[in-house]
């Protein structure tokens, strides 16, 4: 996915309907999933979801489209959504664009990866199972986690999910020299802040990366935030060869975000 062209590829907005934006590109159609930018200071980020004709693409915005008008100029960035990767992310908090939201210095330069990666080939996977010790007796004995496995954590509100998660992150750092990623999807902003403060207080923040697409963000942002977190996690697994624990709260909100996106596009299949 390179930049095919030196001069920037510009388009203009044909219609805006909620988060769905149709854009005309007369020279060259941007690739599917390419990131487009428009609005004041290019603050509005749009992702290409379909090619409607030889000149028109349909995009979905990841930020509110308030103030967007027909005829506004759109820039094709020539690449899909990207997030930074590397050790420099540890102890930081991000949004879906890989921008820091903890009030600290922004992360610029260095390696940024597309959030759309292909799955690991079959030949690259191991087939024997190994247990990942959490250090929590009842889990390790009755419901052990597998390294590289996926486990659902279910429970009502206020029954101790966060405590369990913090405990797991803590043990991951202390026992496995690993890192943890926490990805919040479509939950309350207050919870994100509470978790951040708690991790800071318990001293596990330094080996943790937090990423949030909470319930006040547009559906497309909530939909991709999980992928963005996975991209960061993959780096630690593939490049740093570390054990990574990725926690997603709440996976139902991911599905819900997907339903909202397709509903806005006019699909009735959900």
């Amino acid at each position, binding site marked *: 996915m390179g930049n095919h062209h030196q001069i920037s590829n510009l388009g203009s907005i044909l219609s805006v309907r909620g988060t769905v934006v149709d854009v005309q590109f007369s020279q060259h159609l941007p690739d599917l999933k390419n990131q487009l930018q428009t609005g004041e200071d290019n603050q509005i980020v749009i992702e290409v979801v379909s090619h409607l004709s030889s000149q028109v693409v349909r995009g979905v915005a990841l930020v509110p489209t308030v103030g967007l008008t027909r005829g506004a100029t759109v820039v094709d960035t020539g690449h899909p959504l990207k997030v930074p990767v590397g050790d420099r992310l540890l102890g930081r908090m991000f949004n879906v664009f890989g921008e820091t939201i903890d009030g600290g210095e922004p992360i610029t330069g260095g390696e940024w990866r597309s959030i759309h990666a292909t799955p690991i080939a079959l030949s690259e996977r191991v087939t024997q199972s190994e247990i990942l010790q959490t250090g929590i007796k009842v889990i390790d004995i009755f419901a052990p986690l597998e390294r590289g496995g996926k486990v659902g954590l279910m429970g009502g509100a206020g029954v101790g999910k966060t405590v369990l998660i913090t405990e797991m992150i803590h043990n991951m750092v202390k026992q496995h020299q690993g890192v943890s990623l926490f990805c919040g999807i*479509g939950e*309350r902003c207050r919870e994100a802040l509470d978790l951040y*403060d708690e991790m800071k207080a318990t001293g596990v923040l330094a080996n943790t990366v937090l990423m949030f697409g909470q*319930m*006040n963000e547009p*559906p497309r942002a909530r939909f991709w935030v999980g992928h963005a977190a996975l991209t960061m996690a993959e780096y630690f697994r593939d490049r740093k060869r570390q054990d990574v624990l990725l926690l997603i709260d709440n996976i139902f909100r991911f599905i819900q975000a997907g339903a909202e996106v397709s*509903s*806005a596009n006019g699909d*009735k299949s*959900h």
Partner: protein
Amino acid sequence: MRKFRLQTGIKAIDALIPIGRGQRELILGDRQTGKSALAIDTIVNQKDKNVICIYCTIGQRSSSVAKVIADLEKYGAMEYTTVVMAAGEEPPGIKFVSAYAATTMAEYFMELGRDVLIVYDDLTNHARAYRELSLLLRRPPSREAFLGDIFYIHSRLLERATHLHPELGGGSLTALPILETEAQNIAAYIPTNLISITDGQVYLSPVLFQKGVLPAIDVGKSVSRVGGKTQLLAYRAVAGALRLSYSQFEELESFARFGTRIEESTRITLERGRRVREILKQKQYRPMPVATQIAVLLSAAKGLLDDVPIALIAESERVIAEAVTSQLLDVCDRIERGEALSDLDHESLLRVAREQISSITSNSVKGSKP
């Protein structure tokens, strides 16, 4: 984060489902269970508490809104309250945007560093107005004919309520959205959405309402996810015992109805529970100060009222409240300041309560004799 309580003046809420400033607490229940009354009582209780109130009515009958405004005026609440109204007869567009207009007004005060309380009465009508608009715009409907992003509509609105960082002035916006359920179905689309958006809910039960338990708060189905951290220390000592005795009572109540022979310990649990329920009753427009709440709740939780006939509970509550405010000024002061009560303080509260209760019961015994 700096956290403060929002005192509703309603015993059952302040003790068992405490609300913090900046919290979003859903009030839901079937029609005619006293949802608006609860919110209006909370507004009335903010008098002299330096809290600005915004009452946003969406799709209500104009006559009932006029009555609410008259009541707010009567209790001197209009001095610090703004009413934003989109009446039932107005077009759906007005009903949809009025919630945002009201929130913007509230945010202005919050950004000035003030504490603000906003009541949305109710979001059921707000959701319906949005449904009407989406269908008129020919957008594809999903569950219950709402547009798929109705969750986002409500989450975006309620996420605007928060407690600002001290660097930003430390203001707060507490939201009490009201929702009407149908046939007590809290698992319907809009109720489940709002339950997952808010920081807790107060559920009003029509069954309790019919029994005359007012406010008809179903303590078992109501929660507050964050308020506990903001609760005055004096409440915490009482709340645990109160909640326990009440939930044990509710469990036993249905069995006891069969008139079977019951053990002595069970009988005591039932008798205490009945009195706790009685003490949690509260008339409309009668918000109660903190110290007197603590005194009467403590009396009930410690079993002081166990031998008082049910009919005399309300009277006992009144005299205990009076006696405590006049005799224990310094304890009252310390409760208001948020200090934890010592055993000695508890003892003196209970002593005053015991005196009052014995005078009431002896009077009634005398009165009943010819």
